[in-house]
């Protein structure tokens, strides 16, 4: 029964604007997805790489405002990261956006989707 009031202004802004959302077109993009059935959360991540680093990120998502805001944040920050080292600091992200501990699982869904996409770009360890 909780509405917008339980979210921070930043979460609301990201939820309302969803920067980076959408399905990219072009041959270089790779797609990863993950989901969590209980909350019916579904995350789809598209990555493009240049020189072993993330060059760009797009996404689609069905999830709660926290999940959407977290994903938008991740998408904005990923460019520049090394494909070989794509660990998200899920707890830091939760703290930053005021995401309650009960929802940490949804951030791991984001992480899984990002990893799945990254795997397509850097198929195996050298």
């Amino acid at each position, binding site marked *: *029964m*909780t*509405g*917008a009031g*339980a*979210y921070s202004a930043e979460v*609301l802004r990201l*939820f309302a604007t*969803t920067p980076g*959302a959408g399905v990219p077109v072009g041959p270089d993009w790779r797609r990863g*997805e993950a989901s969590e*059935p*209980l*909350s*019916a*959360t*579904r*995350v*789809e991540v598209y990555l493009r790489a240049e020189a072993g680093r993330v060059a760009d990120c797009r996404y*689609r*998502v*069905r*999830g*709660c*405002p*926290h*999940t*959407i805001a977290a994903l938008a944040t991740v998408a904005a920050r990923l460019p520049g990261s090394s494909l070989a080292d794509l660990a998200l600091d899920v707890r830091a992200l939760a703290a930053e956006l005021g995401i*309650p*501990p*009960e*929802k940490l699982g949804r951030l791991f869904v984001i992480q899984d989707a990002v990893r799945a996409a990254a795997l397509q770009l850097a198929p195996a360890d050298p």
Partner: protein
Amino acid sequence: MSDPVIYLDHAATAPIDPRVRAAMDESLAAAPGNPSSGHPGGRAARERIEAARAEVAALIGAPAAAIVFTSGATEADNLAILGAARANAARGRHLVSLRTEHRAVLDPLARLAREGFRVTLLTPAADGLIDPAALERALEPGTTLVSVMLVNNEIGVVQDLAAIAAACRRAGALLHVDAAQAAGRVPFEVGALDADLVSLAAHKVHGPVGVGALYVRRAPRPALEPLAYGGGQEGGLRPGTLAAHQIVGMGRAYALARAALHEEPARLAGLRDRLWAALAPLPDVHLNGHPEARAPHILSVSFGGVDGEALRCELPQLAVSSGSACASGHGEPSYVLRALGRDDALAQATLRFSVGRQTTVADVDAAAVGVRRALERLRALAPA
């Protein structure tokens, strides 16, 4: 949130009617007096209380003496269920109710189960209605109490209480009816209902929060154990100084509801139907509960393909309830919708729209537009 809020959450609490508010304020401003005191202020408070008791009774066709004032429907439900089960324990220890009842019924039943009572909770059909024959089959010689709500607070379905009451009579079981959502919305008389105990709330029908009542049949009078003791008010069933202004508020709210009982429910049903007519054509939209046997003020709709929390967050100008949980995260999909077989994702993406006295056609039209836009945006954002 700078837009004006469209309040479609009357089933949670209906805004107090200004005339009720005025009556309460007048009562608060009157000469002071504890209704148990003999001086003029006390007597005046007692008279105001008795006038309100008559008005509450009138809405449901009961004698005034059958009305016991409580602090709300929750207390009325508890007094009825804990009170009747415990007082009749020597006759039997089996209780019957539905999985789709309000927590104020289910939780005292769960408590009684811990005290050694056997509780049978029946699952209604997917449309929310219990088959009276199925209920009758659940009754046993030791069944002392059956509790079935008249109007379900989440989906608005109206149970066939005449048939249920007849089954209870045949089995010699008491019947408690939670009518918190029914009073003033669905015309009914306790005589025809043939119930022994009926719970009422003021704030669901534009009265104040914090006052309700339990109708207790006079003849035969069901044995009831009070929840609390001391002071002897309300025939010993409900002690404590009576809150005249609250009771006056309930009386006025019930009088207003009674005066409008022949037009207002139809008007509310018209608003509800108009809203549904606007939503039904959208893709992947599902009405909850029986399409006809329903109270006029509640419309519960599940939306496929979207997250419920995101949907509500996308509709900040819309004050509605959801079949589910909240940003705090420990919400679970509504147990009512799950009992009726809705899957978790749909149950979680459910909005309960409930209309009331101030609701206009413009309100429901704006709500429909808002929901349509929200669905479009969120579905566009979601993976295919």
